[in-house]
């Protein structure tokens, strides 16, 4: 319940504040969003599995975002930023798909 309220508040804030993203952070934002999405789906799956722990969620959320950003940063420094961010997105996408499959099994029993 509170989580849904937080989601709505975040969307509304984003829509109304229209924050300016610093240029140096711009390449990392999409990757960070995808990483956080992965953490949220993983947490939801853990919740349905009965092994949810809020500390684990906070740590996984933050570390996911930081590691994704770091990989992209490293890729930019190595000159393969575009390819590496594609790779990160693919890996996170696969994880999101498998988490959503588990959640679906819980909710729809299918």
């Amino acid at each position: 319940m509170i989580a849904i309220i937080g989601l709505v508040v975040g969307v509304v804030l984003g829509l109304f504040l229209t924050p300016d993203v610093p240029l140096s952070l711009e390449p990392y934002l999409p990757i960070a969003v995808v990483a956080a999405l992965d953490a949220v789906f993983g947490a939801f799956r853990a919740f349905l599995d009965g092994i949810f722990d809020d500390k684990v969620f906070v740590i996984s959320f933050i570390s996911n975002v930081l590691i994704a950003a770091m990989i992209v940063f490293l890729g930019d420094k190595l000159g393969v930023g575009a390819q590496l961010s594609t790779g990160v997105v693919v890996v996170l996408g696969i994880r999101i798909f498998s988490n959503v499959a588990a959640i679906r099994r819980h909710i729809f029993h299918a």
Partner: protein
Amino acid sequence: MSTGDPDTEPAERPDPVERSGMQRLRRSFFAPSRGQAVVAVLVGVLAFAAVTQVRLAGADDTYAGLREAELIQALNGLQAASRKAERDISDLEETRDQLRSSTQRRTTALEQAQQEVQTLGVLAGTVPASGPGIRITVNDPENQLSLNHLLDGIEELRNAGVEAVEINDRVRVIAQTSFEEDPEGVRVDGVVLKPPYIIDAIGNADTLSGALQFQDGFADDVELDSGSVEIKKADRIDVTVTRTPVPPRYAEAVPGQ
């Protein structure tokens, strides 16, 4: 509850966990806890970032978010396109210049041809002509003027460089003009002309009048035939009679000469 496809999704969940998962979801929906507050904050942050990124990606139609390599690629593409456009421009300009010069040549040829038509038209008598010249009035009250003398007069005019001649405003005298005797006067190109004969001649007035008035020339001949000649110089003589050109029946033009 293994109604799902066991091939693609291996059944790894025991029934009690599954049931309790859904029940926990239902229960926690109405029972807030500290963990839920933490989750709410992080999910809010995620939503905020996602919305920002969506807005950014939607507005990002320039090259602002591109990496160095992508910018170089885009630049290369633009350079190739501009090189190609420049090549096209020079090709088209060449074509335009060619067309322009060919048009110019054609216009010049046309002008030359028109000038030639004018010149030949005056000579062949197909166009009216006007210019300085003389008006010769040959009085022949007794109708005794010899045709040969009249013809001599025309010949003298021709020798003096006359450019257009007409007689009595009725007959244009050209290269093919014929002169015959007639009881009433002379027959020029089949047209009977009666005296007095008024000859309009375009050319250098002094030369023309001199050609008719020398000793034993045309004027003296006419006076021998008991006639008289009046010559009047004018700045503007109009030769208005024209002839329709007759295509030659036997002679053929030799092309290329």
